[in-house]
């Protein structure tokens, strides 16, 4: 070999290598999973779209697959109608940024919930996202396609074992999550969601959706604010609340909710993805019905009944139970 050519060939291959690595590095460096998820939080509020989604929810012992049609209109309007299974068929929800109204079409059943599009709800989601950044390792997997659209694929693995993990597929153009899967620490699917159809830039006159709702003047029936902080709670109830002193690492208080006309206090803790719910009520309240599949811990202490629901290892549940004071 000509001695002069060796360094040239070497230089060439080095050059190619640098370009390639630089190229791939730049395409990965171009956007971080953290950024993608942060954009994604705002995405739904900046889009008009119509789509059909399938949600699968797995409780040990029962699983549901629900098909819903969804319509979102800027900035904070959502309308959903359940298409399947047939026993949920005429369930609709309408969210106008202030309240989320749930209604069974053709009946007089309707319930009010706080809006999931309100600034308050957004704050909570943001808080959860920050928790995720602390408690999860984010990594970008190979890009893919959903419904013909290029998507980022992000995996979230918990830093502390015993917690659920998540995989999410996010549309590159709009940052809307198009598919999501959650698995518990054993690797079993907890919930899955994906769009089977989606059309962007569809506008609808919002009035048309209000027509489906009962013509009775819609009185805002609920007077209790959800998303209560512990401080709010103390002001609303007259009996002392028992709080778990031990929380699995990464879990923080999310909200308190009053159920059953203020007789039951429920505290929710989250690590960003997983959720722990501790409910407490005076012991003279009878529990009727049966658990569909969550296998909670139920116990009595000092005249109160506790119910603890979470998808975490049993020892953790027991530790929490023992720490409730």
């Amino acid at each position, binding site marked *: 070999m000509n001695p002069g050519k060796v360094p040239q060939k070497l230089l060439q291959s080095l050059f190619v290598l640098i370009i390639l690595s630089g190229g791939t590095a730049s395409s990965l460096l171009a956007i971080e999973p953290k950024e993608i998820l942060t954009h994604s939080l705002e995405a739904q509020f900046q889009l008009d779209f119509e789509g059909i989604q399938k949600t699968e929810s797995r409780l040990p012992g029962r699983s549901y697959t629900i098909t819903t049609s969804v319509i979102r209109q800027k900035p904070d309007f959502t309308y959903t109608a359940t298409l399947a299974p047939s026993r949920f068929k005429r369930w609709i929800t309408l969210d106008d940024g202030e309240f989320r109204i749930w209604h069974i079409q053709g009946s007089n059943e309707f319930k009010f919930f706080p809006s999931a599009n309100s600034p308050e709800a957004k704050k909570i*989601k943001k808080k959860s996202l920050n928790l995720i950044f602390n408690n999860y390792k984010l990594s970008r997997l190979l890009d893919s396609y959903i419904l013909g659209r290029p998507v980022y694929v992000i995996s979230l693995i918990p830093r502390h074992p015993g917690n659920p993990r998540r995989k999410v597929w996010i549309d590159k153009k709009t940052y809307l999550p198009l598919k999501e899967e959650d698995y518990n620490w054993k690797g079993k699917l907890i919930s899955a969601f994906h769009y089977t159809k989606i059309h962007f830039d569809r506008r609808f006159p919002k009035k048309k959706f209000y027509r489906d709702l009962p013509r009775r003047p819609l009185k805002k029936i609920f007077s209790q604010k959800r998303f209560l902080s512990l401080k709010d709670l103390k002001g609303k109830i007259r009996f002392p609340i028992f709080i778990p002193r031990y929380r699995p690492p990464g879990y923080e208080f999310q909200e308190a909710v009053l*159920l059953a006309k203020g007789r039951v206090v*429920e505290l*929710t803790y989250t690590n*960003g993805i997983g*959720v722990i719910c501790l409910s407490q009520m005076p012991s003279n309240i009878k*529990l009727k019905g049966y658990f569909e599949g969550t296998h909670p811990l139920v116990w009595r202490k000092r005249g109160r009944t506790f119910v603890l629901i979470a998808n975490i290892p049993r020892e953790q549940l027991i530790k929490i139970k023992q720490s409730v004071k």
Partner: protein
Amino acid sequence: MSCKKWKKKLSSYLDNEVSYRERLKIEKHLKSCPACFNEFKQLERVHRLVQSIQPEKPRPGFYERLSERLSQEKLTLREKLVGWRYSWQLSFPRVGKIAVAISAVMLLSVSFYIWRSSISYEVNIKVFEEEYLRSQQMNSFVGELALPVFFEIK
């Protein structure tokens, strides 16, 4: 289907209480049957006439008059109680009165206790599961996760 059967459905159709399929069938029939169409038009006319009736209002001061009647009722009730006490004071011997008083108090306290403990509230377990699922949903990245809750509606 004979016109008689179609005509029976016209009232529900007018009230918009027929299924979507039924409605289409009825509309189709109305287009082709002048007799039924005519009858439907008459039903509509009746409906419009009734709707155009001005709602009647009570004379002003309705609540005030009601309030008066209410307080009169309360008064007669009180009078009844007072009258009972008065006649009771007159008719019973002393010892008897004390005995009656004591047993009345005992009876009241027992029944109060029974009433208190019988007020047991019931909470359906589904409430807890629903809340758990709802909290889980809050943490999804997806805005509109469908909820498999409200399994059975009363």
